[in-house]
């Protein structure tokens, strides 16, 4: 994304696979923060335009009413909740990579975890818009917050939607703290080389970091504690989101399978999104030395594994519906398989169950193009998974009088597409403001320098 003339000379040795030195790390990471080029601005314009359309569409919907979105009886939930769950799912991989893999000392996480964490926060920020977009009277969405008020109102703690409020806000705050704490040493490094407003910003964010031994000891302990705190959230958030459905009566929703099923799916899609973001970063910023083939290989293996587990859950879902012997449950399943939305189900099965199988092949796991295509397919598949849970199940539930088909409108489609633009605009901004690779942790994985000729300070 940086303009060609600013591209640094290739690392000594010519090959992108050469082990970088500490100095290379500093230089390469700080390079990503150089003033952007035309390509970057072009991307920003495109994304910004789409976001503007999304905002206009939302404004229209607030003004006109929810009728602008294609919802109806019985599909009172449709694409907004689909996309909400999708983004929450995306938000999963970040914490998994940064916290769980940190606790398990999986060293390959270092080069991607910063981007993954940022992705998490942005994904949760995107997801967090949807309950607002979705509510019929979004201007009263604060009714869901428990605080003493003159209205004598208190939220209903029996409602999974209130659980959502807590699960998501907890997740967002812990992830943000974890992200900021992880950034401190790196920001200090960036602070030392930046000027102007950036320097003031980074001075503030680096919290007076000097890299002293005492600071490092405290930092390590705090980071480990936060990782331990964040780990259960990986399981809890998506379990809670899954209960929005599992706690309801709707055939196709009312299942004990949902919590693990959703968590697995979330990790699956989260890794796909990490790849979708990391592969272009690696390409445009020439980070091949840091995001190496073995990193891609490890992530591909995780996608393959979670994909296979997901396939197992799909089979379970089909089996339990059939084995339940419940007529309504079976009818709902049969309609999802054969009815108006069978194409969506077929898309989902292809994307989530078939397409990752190519990753059994070792060369595919390190081929960026194949990985990119598989990741995009997985994202599509996971969006359709949520769509298939929500829309067809509601369209063919208990009461035959209301059975029917939901048709999206321009308004809700624009808002959905706009939410992707919102996510990408945040991410594009991030990679130019913050070090998107962890300088500290990358250095930890390198061989210690024998003689540091270029005097790159170890922060």
């Amino acid at each position, binding site marked *: 994304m940086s303009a060609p003339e600013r591209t640094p000379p290739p690392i000594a040795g010519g090959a992108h696979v050469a082990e970088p030195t500490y100095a290379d790390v500093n230089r390469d990471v700080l390079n990503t923060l150089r003033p952007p080029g035309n390509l970057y601005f072009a991307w920003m314009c495109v994304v910004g335009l789409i976001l503007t359309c999304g905002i206009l569409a939302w404004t229209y919907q607030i003004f006109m009413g929810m*009728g602008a979105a294609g919802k109806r009886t019985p599909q009172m939930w449709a694409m907004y909740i689909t996309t909400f769950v999708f983004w929450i799912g995306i938000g999963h991989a970040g914490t998994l990579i940064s916290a769980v893999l940190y606790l398990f000392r999986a060293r390959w996480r270092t080069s991607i975890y910063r981007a993954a964490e940022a992705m998490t926060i942005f994904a949760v920020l995107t997801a967090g818009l949807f309950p607002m977009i979705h509510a019929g009277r979004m201007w009263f969405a604060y009714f869901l917050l428990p605080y003493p008020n003159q209205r004598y109102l208190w939220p209903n703690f029996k409602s999974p939607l209130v659980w959502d409020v807590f699960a998501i806000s907890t997740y967002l705050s812990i992830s943000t703290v974890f992200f900021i704490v992880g950034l401190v040493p790196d920001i200090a490094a960036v602070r030392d080389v930046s000027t102007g407003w950036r320097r003031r910003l980074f001075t503030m964010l680096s919290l007076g970091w000097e890299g002293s031994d005492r600071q490092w000891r405290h930092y390590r302990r705090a980071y480990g504690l936060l990782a331990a705190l964040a780990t259960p959230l990986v399981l809890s958030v998506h379990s809670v989101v899954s209960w929005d459905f599992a*706690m309801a009566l709707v055939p196709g929703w009312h299942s004990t399978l949902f919590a693990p099923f959703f968590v697995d799916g979330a990790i699956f899609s989260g890794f796909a999104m990490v790849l979708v973001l990391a592969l272009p970063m690696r390409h445009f910023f020439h980070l091949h030395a840091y995001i190496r083939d073995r990193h891609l290989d490890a992530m591909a293996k995780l996608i393959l594994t979670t994909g296979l587990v997901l396939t197992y859950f799909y089979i379970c879902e089909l089996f339990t519906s059939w084995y339940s012997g419940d007529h*309504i449950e079976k009818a709902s399943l049969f309609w999802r398989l054969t009815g108006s939305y069978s194409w969506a189900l077929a898309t989902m099965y292809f994307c989530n169950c078939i397409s990752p199988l190519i990753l059994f092949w070792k060369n595919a796991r390190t081929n960026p193009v194949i990985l990119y295509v598989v990741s995009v397919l997985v994202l599509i598949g996971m969006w359709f998974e949520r769509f298939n849970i929500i829309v067809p199940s509601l369209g063919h539930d208990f009461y035959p009088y209301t059975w029917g088909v939901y048709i999206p409108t321009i308004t809700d489609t624009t808002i959905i597409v706009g939410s992707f633009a919102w996510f990408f605009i945040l991410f594009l901004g991030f990679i130019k403001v913050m070090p998107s690779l962890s300088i500290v942790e990358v250095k930890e994985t390198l061989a210690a320098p024998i003689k540091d000729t270029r005097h790159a300070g170890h922060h």
Partner: protein
Amino acid sequence: MNRRDFFKIVATTGATAAAAGCQQATEQILPLVVPNEQLVPGVAAWFATVCRECPAGCGVLARNREGRVVKLEGNPDHPVSQGALCGRGQAAVQGLYHPDRFPGPQRREGDALKPVSWDDALKTFAEKLGGVKGKGKTLAVVSQLENGSLGALLDRWTQALGGRPRVTLEPFGYEAIRAANRATFGRDAIPYYAIHDAEVVLSFGADFLETWLSNVHYARGFARMHTFRDGKAGTFIHVEPRQSLTASNADEWVRNAPGTEAAVALAVLKLMLEGGQAADRRFGDAVASVDPRKVAEESGVPLETLQNVAKTFAAAKPGLAIGGGVAVSGSHATATQIAINLLNAAAGNVGKTVRFGPDSAYGKVTPYAEVARLVQAMAAGEIEVLVLGSGVNPAFTLPGGLKVADAIRKVPFVVSFAGLPDETTALAHLVLPDTHWLESWGDYSPMEGVNGLLQPTMKPVRDARQMGDVLLAVGRTALGTEAGKGPLPWESFQQYLKAAWEPVVKDKWSEALSQGGTWREGAAAPAVAVSPRVERVDAAAAKLDGGEGLALIAYPSIRWYDGRTASRSWLQETPDTMTQTVWDAWAEINTETASKLGIRQGDVVKLTSPHGAIDLPAYLSPTIHPGAVAVPIGHHYAPYHLRLKYVPAGSASANPMALLPAAADAVSGGPAFLSVKVSVARTGARRPLAVLQATHDQDERELARHVDLATARKEALGGKKLHEAHLSMYSEHEYKGYRWGMAVDVDACIGCQACVVACHAENNVPIVGRAEAAYGRQVSWLRIERWAEGLAAQPHNMFLPMFCQHCEVAPCEPVCPVFAAYHTEEGLNGQVYNRCVGTRYCGNNCPYHVRRFNWWNYEFPSPLEIQLNPDVTVRQLGIMEKCTMCIQRIVAGKDHAHRDEKRAVRDGDIQTACQQTCPTKAITFGNLKDEASAVSKLANAPRAYHVLDEIGTRPSVTYLKKVVRGGHEPEPRTGKGQA
């Protein structure tokens, strides 16, 4: 901003607002008829009057709040309606507050009607009248059926001005019944049919649950006769080529070939006589030439069916045979009615269930043949002034073959008293809008012995004047006389009415007014014995012109009658029960016929007869006779339906009257509705119908259930109770005072949709329009579902009124994050609109899908907003709503009992709007905690069940299974996907 600036701004804006206010016309907050010092804001006043939406003449009570009528209810004391009202009656307030009502008199200037002052309008009218005075029969007056004072005044007025005898125009005039009664009983009358006293009703096409004669009254009677009660239930057999709403309420629906009713009736009579079952055996000669075997072949009714019908009918003590409807209005109509008379006579029903004496007002309708003669006179240029009363729309409701519009164009001066623009006012030179009947004085006698009295229930909404007043004033001017003198001495129509009633009511005028009229106790006068004259009856089938094609069955619909009620958006958005279609008319074609013609559902087809052609979307039905195509009469849109985009721009009416011939049926002089064959061809366009019900197949979910008569009887007499095991980890709800609940008898529900319209009226339910309704966004809190079982071509239909079930373990309640949905202490599922954020989780989780969301801010186009019930919140966009069991009525009922009378609420104190209007009393409301209450008894009855009880929602609404009569039980399901 400092304090001074603030005051400056406030003062300036205040003054501007005040100045702006000065320019507006004064608006009355309380538009009272007479300023009333007794008026208490917040307390309703009730005015008794008579519904004039059709000639049935039901007594109604108008609920007036702060000077404005907001709701109509049947007058419980009135012998016709007995407290009930049909959907058309309920929707009358939408006629009163119709956005398209003429704001005042209009005069034609070029192509358009332009407003004119009353003085000018009356002057013009009087001049024209003066011009024709004494010119002999060049003045013609056409009114709807007015048999009271207005009719008398009209006759007197016409006579004074030397006009032709007044024509009473009712498109459905039942001339064939009168002709047959002349022939068999020597009486030119339509008797009273005591359906409630019959054990077996045998109907030949008489749609008495929809429009025939007096649909509310006969539905009440039908419920008494037919609904299962204490182990007893009557039998209803219906002969008709299509499965109408009435047909689908029959225990046995016999599908005959169109036009073969006379033959079928005679064959039944013959089989009765042969079987020795007839009480009276004089009729052998009449049916001598009838061969039941041949009839069976021609009509397509199996011989065994004919035999069974004959046996069942003959065994009834008493039975009742009736005939009518459109299928019985062709060249065979009189023969069919004579055959029916003979059936009744042979079975000994005359005097028992067929009662001459309390004759119907329909007997006074001008026969169609005379109407046709007037139209011919107009076409010949013999008429110079044509006066059209309100309620008549000849350009729309008369057969297309008559070319009424062309004839009216030949009349130099046409005055219309219509309140709403229609096809006829489009041809009028002067429109003098009559007051709505809710704003008018008047009287109407629906049958001998019942005299209903109309009074203004509020001040006119628009600058309208009562027709009687206008006629008196204009007549005097034309005649050059003054008030108090000459043939038209009365100051006003009110004075005339009072004078006419004076001999009857004496000093009891206000009693009569508050009662809604006078009637004899019990309504039915002593039966007059009439003995039939027996002649040979012609069993020939109806003659149909048009050669090849399908027999056209143009039938009056329960929602639109002849078209006069189609301008009400409530009736447009209330679905036709059989097809569940809203906002559209359609051509019902048999599925097999359609597949031969390559027609799919929703294809626009052109129906062409020798007299005209119309385009309509096709509705495929497996039930209609393959040789017939059926189209409801009277479908058209009001201008505001198009203006507010309830229907797509350019939507046009499609009235099958356009396809019918001018010629009257030669024997009876009635219009021949069944008289043409039409060719049906695809136009290539598509217009998918807005059908609300996704499928009529319940997919083995037992939403609507049935039980056979024998079992029902055994259980009812054995006292079996509903038993449902409720396993729960949670403690039971405790109800301190009341626990409200409802019971719906599926056996009683006839699917007339009156409750749906009543719910719209009571609960401020908005209208969403065609596209939105088709997309599952209709807001109606109550829907009547039709569930079909058995053979596709001969389904057994059950009607299931579905609304919020007020579950004890309600799936909607725990999922609401803000307690907008909550359980009240009295067992209702409350919905707090102000709290609702609109997450719609409750709507998803409701297994019945009875929760309705406000997808948009719905409009109540002015002045329809005046109709809104002040006791019910008008909902904002973005919130969920649903049936509240009329919580406002519960609150009012409790208030009245607890505070005014210091007692607990008694059973029957509170009625929900749907229950109140139900003609068959299928709905019961009450306190479930009180074991003696009617609703508790029904909830514990052997037929009781809960819809989807296996989910464990424990609804407060209990349904009672439909009772299917022995031998006619639905067969096992044969397949999915019934139309």
